[in-house]
């Protein structure tokens, strides 16, 4: 698994609430059997003026000049500043795959949808939840200052603004540990293989109808 420690990066806005995973990566791109190559299609429907197709070369597609990530000042952004309930809707992990492939490694928002939030940690992306008023303030500072960048430090759980202001954020200890160290969480769970086996034995005795499934 990819790790995340400290990130200093340019911030770009996704200034709308309830950004759903269909918007992050539309369904036609989900036909891929690969984990990579989704970056060019990130936010496809609002980023381009035409309808994108999987495998398409996006170099010459007409871009939506109004869309933030197309604006020169946000080129090379590593941090996405977003609104409430970011990542709602479908469970598609293609959403964080597309963000990561595009170069976004951190998303700051007042709240995230559960499944998306969880999927981020599996892909080296840190979702940071901050109070709505703080997110408002960051949006304002970003809009007012071209080249606005933030430092996000996972080990100290702090976001530092260009003026040196630090804002702390909460993160689950286990997720933090895995993300900091880029741990393979399947390997970690398999360290508990004995516990799983003994649970399974007990559960099989208690609920035998859940095992040795044979249909008729």
């Amino acid at each position, binding site marked *: 698994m990819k790790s995340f420690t400290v990130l200093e990066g340019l911030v770009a806005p996704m200034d709308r*609430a309830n950004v*759903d995973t269909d918007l992050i990566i539309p*369904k036609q791109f989900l036909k891929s059997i690969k984990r990579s190559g989704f970056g060019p299609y990130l936010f496809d429907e609002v980023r381009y003026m035409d309808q994108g197709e999987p495998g398409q070369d996006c170099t010459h597609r007409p871009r939506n000049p109004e869309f933030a990530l197309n604006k020169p000042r946000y080129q090379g952004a590593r941090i996405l500043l977003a609104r409430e309930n970011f990542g709602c809707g479908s*469970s598609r*992990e293609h959403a964080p795959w597309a963000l990561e492939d595009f170069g976004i490694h951190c998303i700051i928002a007042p709240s*995230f949808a559960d499944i998306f939030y969880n*999927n981020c940690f*599996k892909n080296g992306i840190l979702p940071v939840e901050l109070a709505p008023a703080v997110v408002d303030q960051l949006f304002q500072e970003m809009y007012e200052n071209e080249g606005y960048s933030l430092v996000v430090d996972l080990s100290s759980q702090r976001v530092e603004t260009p003026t040196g202001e630090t804002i702390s954020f909460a993160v689950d200890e286990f997720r933090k540990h895995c993300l900091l160290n880029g741990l393979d969480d399947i390997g970690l769970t398999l360290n508990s293989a004995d516990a*799983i086996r003994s649970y399974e034995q007990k559960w099989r005795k208690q609920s035998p109808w*859940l095992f040795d499934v044979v249909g008729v």
Partner: protein
Amino acid sequence: MSGKTLYEKLWQSHLVEERDNDSGLIYIDRQLIHEVTSPQAFEGLRLANRQPWRVDANFAVPDHNVPTELHERSGGVAGIADPISRLQVQTLDDNCRDFQILEFQINDVRQGIVHVVGPEQGVTLPGMTIVCGDSHTSTHGALGAMAQGIGTSEVEHVMATQCLVQQKMKNMLVRVDGTLQTGVTAKDVVLAVIGEIGTAGGNNHAIEFGGEVVRALSMEGRMTICNMAIEAGARVGLIAVDDTTIEYVKGRPFAPRGELWDQAVVAWRELHSDDDAHFDRVIELRGEDIAPQVTWGTSPEMVLPVDGIIPDPQLMENAGKRHAADRALEYMGLKAGMAISDIQLDTVFIGSCTNSRIEDLRAAAAVVKGKKVASTVKRALVVPGSGQIKKQAEEEGLDKIFIEAGLEWREPGCSMCLAMNSDKLGAGEHCASTSNRNFEGRQGFGGRTHLVSPAMAAAAAVAGHFVDVRNW
């Protein structure tokens, strides 16, 4: 000490290892697999040289990409016209063969939408923990199972370990008492709930649905409600086990039999929240107050009764909501002050894991029987949720009713709910859809979705615009 909620009982019974801060390693009884979110998980297993922990806990079925037109469908996987879709379905077949996972293949009569097939086959049972790489896995909670959607990394994790590392959720109770008016269905109830609490209202919560209205619902209706728990932000939706649940499960192909059945029923009878259980949040609605619902915007929370008037964003106090409503109206091509009943439809879609079960098809057929689809409606599709449902509907003559009324009768699959196959909306088209999401572009680039119940969709097909099915 207070009693336990149903969610807490399921959590407790599946806890392999307790960890800090209310998290733990949870055992998973079933993993349901489809073609879209599994290929990268199988690839991960191969790369790490890992085997599935328990092969017989996995069931697979292709649903998202499958064509629903008979001429394309009859050729099986090889007949799928889109080469990318074909490869994805073929990859599922190959992976299931290599790892010896039971799969209902594309033209197996048991094939269908994974969330329809699971309960129908008895692959989903009360008291289970169930995962699938699909957010609408919450559907299975209607049987008193803790069922949730996960990402592909976790699909691989469950394949390899039969477990998930999880944070315990908070408990929310949505209680709907009273009775529903004639023509008002489970779909209207859940849309009304989402309208009430919003699409983020259930974040970090498991929502249990209860009350007289929910108790009186059939299993089909209960599945519709739990299906859309995720649209209220809750990964897990739950309904307590009762006689209706047990009657439904009895005799299903993969359900226990004989002595095991009796033993299972005793255990399943405990699957309800205790009277003194504590819920972090309780929402109460009256069944009588719920009218048929129609969404007008691009989020399921943008919903109104059929006799409603589209709101004026300028009158909204919250800046975020105002901005979102403005944007939604622009995308939908609608204006504030317009009556819901004045929205003209181009397409009607009856199907999806929300509303493609036999009861849904019966309700839609009853509305269109002896009538014709309006000349202004370009297309009206009926896509049954599974091969079994299709067969049953045909035995009941529902297919003929639809065809005579001018609706198309299709092969089972996810179809236009998310338009991964060739069933898509054109740009600017308004669709009365029995599916679950009205997001921008969800049913096709530039498509405009209005979420409704099957009866409402059928009535809209005949009228060409939304009408109140209570007066049908």
